C-alpha cells in the first residue's frame, strides 16, 4: 500500500475541483434549506443550467464564453422562477417533489437524441473552455510542494473556484446579517408569524430560491470549465443528494459549513476509494468480495448511510445549532 500517495490524493481532493463544486452547490442549498427552510431537491438542475449555458453557447452556437456565462445565469434565474411559481405557496414536500421532478426533466431533455444537435445527447458537450484557459495567468509548470500540487490548468480553475467560494460565503454572510436575512430565518421558524407582520412570504421565498439557485449554478460553471466537458448524467439526483450530505455534514444555517462539509466529504471519499483500491490491488481484499469497479458503488452506499446517520443522530452537523434546522414540515 502506498500510504504517501493515498494521503496526497486525499489532500488534493480536499481542495480539488469536486470540493469547490460541491461547496458552491451546498452554499446555494444553505440559502434554500438552511436559512429559508425550502427543500430544494433539484440543485443539480441549477448546476446543469450553468454547465449547459456555456456548453451550448460556445460548443453549439460558437459564441464567446462570457455570453455563455450570462446565459447560464439567466437560465438559473428562470428555472428558479419556473419552479417557485407553482410550489412556493404549497407545503415543503411539494417543493421537494417538484424540484426533483424538474431536475429529471432537465437531465432527460439534455440527454435526449431529439435535442442532440443542441445539447449533444448522452455524450454532452466538449471544447468550450478554450476562452477560459487562454486567459490563464499561470505559466506552464507544476505548482505545489513535493508531489502534492497541481499543474497550470487545474490551479487556474481552482483559483477562480475558491475565489467564487470566498465571495459567495461573504455574500451569504452579509445577506444573512441584513434585515432581509432575518426575514428569511423568520420564515424558516414560523411562516405565519412573518405573514402576520405584513411581509410577503411568497416573494421572500422566491428571492431566496433565485439567489440559492444562482449560487449553486456557479458550481456548475466551475465543474464544466474544470473538466472541459459535460455529460448529462453528472446532473442526476445523486449530485443533489451529495450536496445535501455536504451541507448537513457541515451544519445547515452556518456560513462556512458548506465549505468545511465539502472538504471533509471529499477527503473521506478519496480516502475510502484509494484505500479500498490499494487494498484490492495488494490482494488484502479478495476480488470476489469487491473489485475495483465496485469501489465506486461502495462510495454511494457510504454517502447514503452517512446521510441517514447524520440526519438521525446529528442533524445539526458539525457546526450547526439543532434549534435552527428546519426539520419539520408545516
Amino acid at each position, binding site marked *: 500500500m502506498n500510504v504517501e500517495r493515498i494521503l496526497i490524493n486525499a489532500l488534493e481532493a480536499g481542495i480539488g475541483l469536486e470540493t469547490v463544486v460541491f461547496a458552491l452547490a451546498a452554499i446555494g442549498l444553505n440559502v434554500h434549506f438552511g436559512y429559508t427552510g425550502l427543500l430544494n431537491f433539484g440543485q443539480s438542475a441549477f448546476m446543469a443550467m450553468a454547465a449547459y449555458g456555456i456548453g451550448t453557447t460556445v460548443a453549439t452556437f460558437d459564441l464567446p464564453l462570457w455570453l455563455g456565462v450570462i446565459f447560464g445565469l439567466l437560465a438559473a434565474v428562470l428555472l428558479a422562477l419556473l419552479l417557485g411559481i407553482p410550489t412556493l405557496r404549497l407545503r415543503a*414536500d411539494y417543493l421537494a417533489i417538484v424540484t426533483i421532478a424538474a431536475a429529471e426533466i432537465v437531465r*432527460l431533455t439534455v440527454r435526449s437524441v431529439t435535442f442532440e444537435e443542441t445539447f449533444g445527447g448522452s455524450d454532452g458537450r466538449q471544447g468550450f473552455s478554450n476562452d477560459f484557459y487562454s486567459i490563464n495567468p499561470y505559466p506552464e509548470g507544476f505548482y505545489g510542494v513535493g508531489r502534492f500540487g497541481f499543474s497550470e490548468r487545474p490551479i487556474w480553475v481552482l483559483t477562480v473556484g475558491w475565489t467564487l467560494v470566498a465571495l459567495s460565503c461573504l455574500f451569504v454572510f452579509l445577506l444573512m446579517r441584513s434585515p432581509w436575512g432575518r426575514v428569511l430565518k423568520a420564515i424558516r421558524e414560523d411562516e405565519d408569524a412573518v405573514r402576520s407582520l405584513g411581509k410577503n412570504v411568497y416573494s421572500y421565498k422566491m428571492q431566496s430560491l433565485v439567489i440559492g439557485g444562482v449560487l449553486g449554478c456557479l458550481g456548475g460553471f466551475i465543474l464544466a470549465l474544470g473538466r472541459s466537458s459535460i455529460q448529462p448524467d453528472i446532473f442526476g439526483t445523486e449530485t443533489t443528494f451529495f450536496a*445535501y450530505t455536504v451541507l448537513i455534514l457541515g451544519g445547515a444555517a452556518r456560513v462556512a459549513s458548506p465549505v468545511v462539509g465539502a472538504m471533509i466529504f471529499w477527503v473521506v471519499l478519496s480516502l475510502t476509494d484509494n484505500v479500498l483500491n490499494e487494498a484490492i490491488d495488494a490482494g488484502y481484499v479478495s476480488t470476489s468480495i469487491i473489485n475495483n469497479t465496485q469501489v465506486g*458503488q461502495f462510495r*454511494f*452506499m457510504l454517502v*447514503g448511510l452517512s446521510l*441517514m446517520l447524520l440526519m438521525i443522530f446529528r442533524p445539526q452537523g458539525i457546526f450547526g445549532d439543532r434549534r435552527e434546522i428546519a*426539520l419539520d*414540515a408545516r
Partner: protein
Amino acid sequence: MRRRVAVALATMMSALVCVLGLGAGVAHAEGESIFGFLRNAKGGDLVPVEGAKITVKGPGVNETATTDDTGRWTVEVGKPGTYTVTIDQKSLPKGVTLRNPDADSLKVPVVESQDKPVLFALGKSTRVIQSKWAQAAQLSAEGLRFGLIIALAAVGLSLIFGTTGLTNFSHGELVTLGAIIAWWVSTGNLPLSLPGYGGVNFLVAAAITLAIMGLIGWANDARLWGPLRRRGTGLIAAMIVSIGLSLLLRYLLLYLFSGSSRAYPAYRGQKGVDIGPITLSPADYISMAIAIVVLMAVAYALLRTRLGKATRAVSDNPALASASGIDVDGVIRTVWIAGSMLAGLAGILLGIAQGINFQIGFQILLLMFAAVTLGGLGTAFGALVGSIVVGMFVTVSTLVIPAELKNVGALGILIIILLVRPQGILGRAERVG
C-alpha cells in the same frame, strides 16, 4: 403486432437473399467486387429497378455504378477492405423508395477474392402498416398495464404518507427489491451461496418474495421508522433519512445484482396473443388481471374492514384516531407490511414486463410521486386514479413525442397540476401551504 411485422420482414429478406444467391453464381468478376440487384417488391413480384446510381467509396475507390435492365450493378474494388456503399435515392424511379430512407449508406467489409453482395431493401416501409388508431389501442393497453403496476406501488406510498406523513423516497427500492428477490429465488442465483438450492417454480418464488417483502416492510417500521417516530424526528428529517436509505439500498442492490439487465427465465420470449388490435403476451394479460384483483381487494379492505376503516381514520387525524381507541402504531405497522408487499408485487410484474435491473424501482419513483400528487396526496383511491392516468399518459404520449421524452411529459404534467389543482383530482380542497 411488432412480432408479426418482424416475421413478415424476415420472410421478405430471405426471399431477397435467395435472389442474390442466384446472382452470385452468375457473377464472374476477377478479384474483388461489390455487386447487387435492385428489385422492387410490388404485389408479390420483384420488379428490377433500372438506372439507379450506387456509389462505392473506400481505399482508392470512388466509383458510381448504374443498375442495368435486370437491376444489377457491379463495382470492381480491386482489393480487400471496408467500403461504404451509398445509394442515390434521387436516382430511383418514381414510386420506388428505400424501405428505410435513413439506411441509404452501408459499410461493407470485403475479403480476398470475394464478390460481395450488397442489399438495399426497397418497397413500402413495413413498419408503418399499423394505423394510428391501432397504435393508440396497443399503447393504451400497454399504458393500462404500466398504470396498474404503478398503482400497486403507489397505493402503499400513499398509505404510508397518509398515516405517517413520511414522503418515502426509498419506496422505489422496495419495488426493485421485489423484482430482484423474485429473480434470486426463482433462478437460484442467490448472492450468498446456498448449497443444494437450484431455484424453484416462478409462482412459488413470487409467493416467497412477497413473504420476504412483508418482513422487509415490518423491519422498515419496527427497526427504523417506528423508533424515529418515537424520537419525534421531524418530517423533513425523515424524508432526508429516506433519501439516504434509498441511496444505500440502490447501490447495495447494484453491488449484489450487478448493473446488467436480466429477465425471469419463465417469461422470456412469450408469443403474443391478439385481442382486436392489441397484442400482449399471456404474462401481460395475467399481470393485469392480478393487479386489478389485488387493487380491488385493497379497495375492499379499506372501505369495508375494521382495519381499513382504522387506516383511513389514522390518515385523517392520528391524534383523534388514537383517542378513539385505535391502535395507531399497529395500523402503521400493517400499512408498512402491506405497502411493502404491494411494492414487491409491483416489482415482480414490472420485471416481467420490462426486465429487471437495479434501478427499475427508482426509475418509476418519480412517476409514483406524480401519480400520488395527481390523485391527491395521502388518499389511497387518488393514488389509484392518478397511477392509471400517469401510466396511460406516459405510454400513449409516445404516439406524438419521442419515447425517450415520455417521462418528461408526465413530470411536466405533475408541475402543471400543482399549479391549477394542488390538492389533486380526488383530494379535498384545503389549504396545503
